[in-house]
């Protein structure tokens, strides 16, 4: 699965995700990627999120939207909200995976409960970072 979150010059947040799904999948199985609020969500008032991982858990826990909701209703930062959902709620339920998330100020969170996640960013200062583990 691949995903992106961006903040453009007008202050608009956008999220996008694309995937081939699960090896050996059948029966018309669809994961979380195209499900709004599960694997992907964007609201310029809170944050943009793209997720990757065990889709069935992302769907049931509405991971992407829940991160935005924690910011909106609990006033949490993007990092705290993403860690709360991925490292607490999702992981304790048995769901593996991670997210990239960005708030309206361009702050970035990259949180995963797996051994690694291919990831990278260019932040508002123009700093480039890539990581795997």
């Amino acid at each position, binding site marked *: *699965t*691949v*995903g*992106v*979150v*961006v*903040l*453009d*010059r*007008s*202050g*608009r*947040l*956008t*999220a*996008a995700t*694309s*995937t*081939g*799904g*699960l*090896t*050996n999948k*059948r*029966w018309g199985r669809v*994961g979380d*990627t*195209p499900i*709004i609020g599960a*694997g*992907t969500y964007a*609201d*310029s*008032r809170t944050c*943009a999120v*793209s997720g*990757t991982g*065990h889709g*069935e858990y992302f769907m049931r826990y509405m991971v992407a939207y829940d991160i935005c909701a924690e910011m909106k209703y609990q006033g949490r930062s993007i990092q705290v909200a993403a860690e709360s959902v991925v490292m607490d709620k999702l992981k304790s339920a048995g769901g*593996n*995976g*991670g997210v*990239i998330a*960005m708030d309206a100020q*361009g702050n*970035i969170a990259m949180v*995963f409960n*797996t*051994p690694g*996640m*291919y*990831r*990278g*960013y*260019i*932040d*508002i200062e123009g700093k*480039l970072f*890539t990581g*795997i583990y």
Partner: protein
Amino acid sequence: GRVAIAVHGGAGTMKPSRATPELERAYREALTVALKTGYAVLESGGSGLDAAVATIRVMEDSPLFNAARGAVFNSSGGNEFDAIIMDGDTLDAGAVAAIKGVRNPIELARLVLERSPHVLLVGESAQEWGREQGIEFQDPEYFYTERRWKSLEAARERARQSGIEFDPFPTQENKTQDKEAAKDFDPSGRFG
């Protein structure tokens, strides 16, 4: 008007035994190209939608990632794609699921957002609508990668050995029931 971009290429990283420096470098380079592509769009004043699609296209065209060209195989040996794009200003969204043969599913998702009154289109009908919109298709060979095919064969073998017809998410319990199958168990396999 400051801009920023972040990407991921999946949470299932390589097994340490397969993580050669060359492969790690290839992943980092692909991530960097994707980032710079999207960032260039943003810096030139392009919209978030334009930047997101340009970025995802780079990764969909790479054989390294589980999306489009590098996608995993389903149980019948084909590829099926899902994609979505969402605009945070308007909450407009476009998504496609279980589509086949589309070179860049993210472009079809954007068309759903911009040219249809719907949010999510699925399967053959979505493909047909995409053809009417002029979306590019590719033959199955374009999406073939040896690595993903071997992953499918391994998944089939795991299923055969465990006696469970389809178990993409082996539990600790059924892993330990079959020690041989457990040896090959790769938790990242669930992410393709």
